[in-house]
């Protein structure tokens, strides 16, 4: 096994902490709604406001989502875990403490497989724990004062912490994408990064190969994969610059500024608060029975990793294609239905990654909303496979189907006159005409220029209005010119 790629002679070490907002309808310790975007403080009940006399009650839905995640990453789901209080004063923290799991988290260990380029890698998880989110401080529009919106206070989070296993920004991004796919796949998080439902902190350090871990700096609140890559890349160069200048790295929390593309220190270790963690006496230990775990395990869908492996094994897809087909349950459902319709897995994968994704992105649609249904795509691919249409023709059919909101593939081919010219008599006539009309190219080809031959094939395709089968056309041309 080859070692990791070095940057200016340094090895990069990255660990990620991800906050995934769990998709429960109500908050982790209260009955208030978790819906995003409501008017400030309209979704904060007495418990969220920390009114005197209120008490937290664990939302079982949040626990079930944590169990589901634990099973999906092959972790130990703790039969008993403890909620602690993390004490600090801040206006958007109504109780003056955050309820979070500290010493004994609900999910312990586990791992996630990622594919970076063609290489596979296992990222080990340290833990995943349940906690509540804080509210928001609104600094604009209050004439020098700060507004507090407690709608988000008490929203359930699963904080997923990795070991320092990643060795490049690319690996970190692939892990984050893989984790994002997984939590959305499991239905435990909506994955909406703009709304903050999935946000990452990256712990970054550099070292000479073989040296002990360097001092890390933590980049907070990365809410896009692109920013994550930029932030880590900048941070790595910054740290190496410092070390090369003979300076040392101080442990710190930093923020990434997307406008400047730079990271900048927010607080140093000296400012670190003493959170005075202690077990929350309002919440008994979270007890999870083996039966509960089993029940959730039985209801779990096939996981993206397992599904991708199946696509590789049974359908013969390359690893990358298989991972792409398993990017979401909807995507995988589409792929499998289209594959069943035509029995051409590789062609289906090509079309889904190519034409279909292109059109979906252009229209801002999800695959569920594709006007070309899996059966139609399957039928179209069958027509490519049996030579009825060329790839070119198929693209035109696809366009027509898309813009018309669907239709019968054969009827569209017929009506559009897009059938490939498989009649060798007609093709022979065209080939003869092209040879006659392009003496210069013919001469060059005979002189050994391959380019000239391609030009001739192009002319045949043009003359046939794209209906000629290119393979057949080349063969005929070659025969006539020899």
């Amino acid at each position, binding site marked *: 096994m080859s070692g990791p790629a070095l940057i200016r002679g340094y090895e990069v070490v990255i660990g990620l902490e991800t906050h995934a907002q769990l998709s429960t309808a109500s908050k982790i310790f209260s009955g208030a709604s978790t819906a995003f975007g409501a008017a400030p403080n309209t979704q904060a009940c007495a418990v969220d*406001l920390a009114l*005197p006399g209120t008490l937290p009650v664990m939302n079982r839905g949040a626990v079930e989502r944590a169990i589901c995640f634990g099973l999906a990453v092959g972790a130990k789901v703790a039969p008993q875990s403890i909620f602690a209080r993390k*004490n600090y004063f801040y*206006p958007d923290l109504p109780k003056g403490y955050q309820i979070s799991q500290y010493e004994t988290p609900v999910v312990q260990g586990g791992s996630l497989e990622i594919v970076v380029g063609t290489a596979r890698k296992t990222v080990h998880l340290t833990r995943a724990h349940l906690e509540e989110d804080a509210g928001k401080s609104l600094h604009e529009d209050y004439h020098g004062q700060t507004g507090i919106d407690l709608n988000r206070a008490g929203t359930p989070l699963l904080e997923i912490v990795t070991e320092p296993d990643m060795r490049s920004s690319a690996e970190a991004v692939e892990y984050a994408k893989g984790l994002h796919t997984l939590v959305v796949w499991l239905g435990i998080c909506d994955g909406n990064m703009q709304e903050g439902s999935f946000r990452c902190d990256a712990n970054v350090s550099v070292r000479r190969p073989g040296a002990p871990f360097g001092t890390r700096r933590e980049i907070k609140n990365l809410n896009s994969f692109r920013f994550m890559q930029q932030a880590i890349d900048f941070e790595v160069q910054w740290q190496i610059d410092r070390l090369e200048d003979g300076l040392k790295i101080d442990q710190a929390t930093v923020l990434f500024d997307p406008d400047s593309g730079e990271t900048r220190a927010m607080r140093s270790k000296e400012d670190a608060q003493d959170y005075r963690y202690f077990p929350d006496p309002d919440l008994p230990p979270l007890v999870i029975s083996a039966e509960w775990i089993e029940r959730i395990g039985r209801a779990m869908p096939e996981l993206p990793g397992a599904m991708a492996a199946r696509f590789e094994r049974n359908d013969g897809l390359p690893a990358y294609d298989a991972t792409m087909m398993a990017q979401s349950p909807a995507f995988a459902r589409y792929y499998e239905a289209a594959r069943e319709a035509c029995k051409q897995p590789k062609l289906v994968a090509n079309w889904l990654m190519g034409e279909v994704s292109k059109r979906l992105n252009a229209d801002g649609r999800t695959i569920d909303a594709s006007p070309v249904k899996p059966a139609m795509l399957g039928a179209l691919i069958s027509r490519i496979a049996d030579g009825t249409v060329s790839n070119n023709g198929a693209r035109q059919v696809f366009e027509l189907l898309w813009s018309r909101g669907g239709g019968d593939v054969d009827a569209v081919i017929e009506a559009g006159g897009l059938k490939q010219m498989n009649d060798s008599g007609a093709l022979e006539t065209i080939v003869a005409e092209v040879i006659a009309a392009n003496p210069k190219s013919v001469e060059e080809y005979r002189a050994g220029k391959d380019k000239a031959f391609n030009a001739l094939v192009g002319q045949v395709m043009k003359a046939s209005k794209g209906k000629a089968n290119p393979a057949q056309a080349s063969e005929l041309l070659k025969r006539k010119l020899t």
Partner: protein
Amino acid sequence: MTGELHEMGAAALGRAIAARDVSSVEVVTHLLGRIDAQRGLGAFLHVASDAAVGQASEVDARRAKGEILGPLAGVPIAHKDIFVTADMPSTAGSKMLAGYASPFDATVVARLAAAGTVTLGKLNCDEFAMGSANENSAFGPVRNPWDPSRVPGGSSGGSAAAVAARLLPAATGTDTGGSIRQPASFSGITGIKPTYGVCSRWGMVAFASSLDQAGPLARSAEDCALLLSAMSGFDERDSTSAERAPQDFHAQMLAPREGANASRPLQGLRIGLPREFFPAALAVEVNTALRAALGEFERLGATLVDVSLPRTELSIPVYYIIAPAEASSNLARFDGVKFGHRAASFADLADMYAKTRAEGFGAEVKRRIMIGTYVLSHGYYDAYYLQAQKLRRMIADDFQQCFEQCDMIAGPVAPSVAWKLGAQDKDPVAAYLADIFTLPASLAGLPGMSIPAGFGEGGMPVGLQLIGNYFAEGALLHAAHAFQQATDFHLRSPEAAR
């Protein structure tokens, strides 16, 4: 019969109102007059006269229509101001919450209202229930009706004084380290702190969450049984609430013991006397009164057994680490941001916090927040908080060993009778030390009660403490009731109350 109304307990009043010998409105009106006349006691922080008369006439009207109502219907009570209430201010005895209006009722408040009780108001208490003399209220001290120069005990001092002064037949209280039992003892009334988890903590302003328990203060075990039945029970809004069927403590109190008879109702009951509960430092007259009371228990059929709770003294440092630790965190929400007091002017956020809390909290509350913050701090947590938790478990284990030799434990509630106002101003630790006999049961989460058992120095009441095993409230009430059937300490009232 108005002259005797205030001498009647909750059970007796309930029966009289049910029999329509007297109306709830008559009782309430009579007691409101007494409350007004005794304002000097400082027992009430809020009197809800109009609302109370309204509630009473509603009960009377339902009764007139022939509705069958429970044993407490129409009986007036009041709540320690540590319970939040939607229709009355909720201050927790603190300037921090002066004028605070809760949008909801505590579960205990709602359940007693559902039982038909009439709420006369809110009762004074030590600020955030921290104290054992009721001298830590931001709204002034409460005086002991037996001797106004003395304290009524605390932190449920307003509850105890109001019941002792016959302003009310019964009141709610809370007990974290003795705050029901000790004022009951100092004021010559009966109070019970049930097993942790029996009463919901929803709507109780939290002091120390793992210790806080609600309970009644009343004239007799029978009254306490009725109140406790109504106020207890599982509540899904409190995750530490005990999940079990509703209890009829009155029926449990009346159920005869096997092998007992009318003259020896406690036949076969083994009462353990922990050696450590009768130290040399125990006031002589307290010891004398308790020994006499224990003799009465023997005459009623009980046998006294020598037992040991070897970590009794340790319960003081253990409690004064755990309770302040939890308090320091529970009271963090009083920051001036969302509700309660906020400093009028400040330079920045940190200054707002500092000024708000410096102005809003009293000295004892600040002291406990500082102790609690200290013992949870990095580097001290293991030595203090964790160590205290270990000892807490050992203290609970000690009780279980005792309960192999006896059915319940008896001892003093406090080392002395009620002291003079201001006597412990200069020395908070002296007051902490006086909690020694109530803290062990609190730390173990066991039920404990205080019953009037005699009188000591200055004619002040002496209470006897009974401690039972988990969920043994019925057995405690049974023993207390038997004692009260044979004695009249609980019927004596201070001169000022007559």
